[in-house]
């Protein structure tokens, strides 16, 4: 019996060995090494970096640009999930049960479902370059062209530091919403139809259907979405780096933690300092993960 259990464990371990080794070598080990590099003055080329203790972390506290990046990440952490989930829920509800008659979607919902998913198919870089053109400040911009034709002054979507952050947020929402429409649609499909029908017989309108049935029964899925979007909000490197002027500008108005790490490592060649920033970001991410797991612990509803 004991031998059998041992053999079973060995059998499982043999399957796990390869992925665990890969994970150790390519994920855990670099993380651990980043902690070490963060305590050195490594500039990327020397083979013998000097140990400088916690100097990089002390310096980091006085780095205004990095803290600006942190506030942008935190703002995204709140706004991106909120806006995306509200929009995605609305669209998912309309596509699945929001129709005028019975439990069905609005007219043309099959078509919309495909359209909503389009942005998800595009690579992030493609989206970023695409929106650079959409946001162009002259007559060839997709948004400014019509504005200028109406005689309105063009908006500096990416060149006005007061507007650029909202442009980035808009693009992130635009790209993310489609996926969550599909996710919530799948969640809705898991809710028994008779619940909606019963509620409708009892005289519930679209609004109360949404708030009394759809939202409570989808709560689990919404929480999953929140965690995913939160992780996305802590990253957002690619869109910011490729789309915005001066990589996180103008005037650092759109920069995020990951962009500052990249800038310090690969443009200023301060790999030690960049690793220290990375360590801080690591703790932000872990903190967020723990927090969201704590908060989302809730009883499941069994049908």
């Amino acid at each position, binding site marked *: 019996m004991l031998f059998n259990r041992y053999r079973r464990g060995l059998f499982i371990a043999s399957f796990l060995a390869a992925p665990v080794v890969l994970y*150790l070598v*390519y994920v855990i080990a670099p993380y651990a*090494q980043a902690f070490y590099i963060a305590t050195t003055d490594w500039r*990327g080329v020397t083979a013998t970096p000097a140990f400088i203790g916690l100097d990089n972390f002390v*310096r980091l506290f006085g780095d205004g640009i990095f803290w600006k990046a942190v506030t942008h990440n935190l703002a995204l952490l709140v706004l991106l999930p909120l806006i995306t989930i509200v929009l995605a829920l609305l669209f998912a509800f309309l596509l699945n049960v929001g129709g005028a008659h019975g439990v069905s979607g609005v007219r043309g919902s099959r078509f919309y479902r495909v359209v909503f998913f389009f942005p998800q198919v595009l690579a992030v870089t493609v989206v970023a370059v695409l929106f650079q053109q959409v946001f*162009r400040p*002259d007559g060839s911009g997709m948004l400014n062209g019509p504005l200028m034709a109406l005689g309105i002054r063009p908006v500096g979507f990416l060149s006005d530091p007061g507007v650029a952050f909202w442009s980035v947020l808009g693009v992130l929402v635009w790209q993310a919403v489609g996926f969550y429409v599909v996710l919530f649609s799948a969640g809705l499909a898991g809710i028994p139809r008779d619940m909606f029908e019963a509620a409708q017989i009892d005289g519930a309108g679209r609004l109360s259907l949404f708030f009394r049935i759809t939202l409570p029964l989808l709560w689990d899925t919404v929480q999953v979405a929140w965690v995913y979007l939160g992780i996305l909000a802590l990253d957002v490197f690619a869109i910011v780096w490729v789309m915005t002027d001066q990589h996180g500008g103008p005037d650092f108005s759109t920069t995020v933690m990951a962009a500052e790490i990249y800038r310090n490592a690969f443009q200023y060649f301060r790999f030690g300092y960049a690793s220290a920033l990375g360590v801080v970001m690591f703790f932000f991410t872990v903190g967020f993960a723990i927090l969201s797991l704590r908060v989302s612990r809730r009883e499941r509803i069994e049908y």
Partner: protein
Amino acid sequence: MPTTPHISRRELLRGAALVPVAGALAACATPAARPGASGSAAPVATSAANPFGVDGKKPLEVWIFDGGFGQDYAKNIHEPLFKSKYSGVEIKHNATKEITKVLQPRFAGGNPPEVIDNSGANFMDFGALSQDGQLQDLTPLLDAPSWDDPNVKVRDTIDPSVVEIGTYDGKFSVLGYVNYIHGIWYSQKVFRDNGWQVPKTWDDFLKLCETIKKSGKMAPFTYAGKFPQYLYEPLLTMAAKIGGNEVLVNIDNLEDGAWTAEPVKTAAAAWAEVGAKYLMEGTTGLDHVQTQTAQNKYKVAMLPSGSWLENEQKTTTPPDFAYGMFPIPDVTGSDKLPYGTLHTQPGENFIVSAKSPNPQAGMEYLRAMLSKKAAGEFSQLVRTLTVVKGATEGRDISPGVTSASQAVTAAGANAVYYRWNNWYGPLKDEAIAATGQLMSGNLTADQYLERIQKKADEIKNDSSIKKYKR
């Protein structure tokens, strides 16, 4: 035999499986000192024809930044010229747009290539390379006989600022090959057709802007709004013209109050006025290609740029456009430097890795590049000037390059440059951000300079950042 360790087949396999894991764990991200090949061995005798003692059989690896100049000049001009003398040397030609990403791991791993054109947006930090002894001392190259004439040293065939600018930690180690000449660029055809004159004073410049604006034909001025470094260039050149070369020297040396000095204030206020009144609509959101193309389409009259412009725009420039450039006009009437003062700066920086297997051949390659034949053909191919004196003599060159080289001749010794932007990356990014805000009216000239000064002071007081002096 009790001392013989007993290894079962299973343990052997287990051990064999773990060895690479341990190796990979150790070698992943952190740098590793490797004994590796040392480049100092030079068993080949030196001579006047072979001043560095190049081994005729050892290979030579060349990396070219594949940017505005492409890579054909290396493949078709420089490498064949080198080969003509050392036919036994195998040249491994490579090109990339991402110098850092490709080559930084090679330095960290201890096997860098010999010759690197360390240019483009993602070049490797020269200070970091120098600090670690990765740059070959090129002083022997300066003192070697030139490729064309054994009686003339290489030092005497090139622009003297190359040596000054290429010196790191007291050693000449970076060879700027191209001579970048900065100025205000316009279409000679447009100016001729409209009867507009090249302005000699700043008042004339503003009047010209007003005339162009009123004519309704095109916008007076633009710059690469997404990259405001295109604008702080004329701003600083103007400051140097007003207050003399020491304005820029002080800025480079991070002197207290260098940025808030009176000449810089005057220049910042002058350009802020241009930003407020005469910019092409949407300038702040456009990049260099978009603004330069707008100029080619006759939508804007003037923009600040450098002598690479003509080559960069060759596909969109109308045939009769005729690029021309003029220097910063006289501002105060009592400017310290005369009309014609230019910002010229060697660029397209070539280095030889000290720790590469064959640095001697690397230096010899640079010597070949500095021959009149190599430099002249380069100028013709990529429409730009090199630091080699008189290399374009007797060659048929384009209007823009002609205009730039005339300006250089007219400027004579009145040439200025600055290096803070290459020395202190964070200061450069701050200046870029602030310049954008100055030109869009969100900062006044005083606020603008105070902001940059604050960053400069921050860097001065940060002991972890290596300081440079000139």
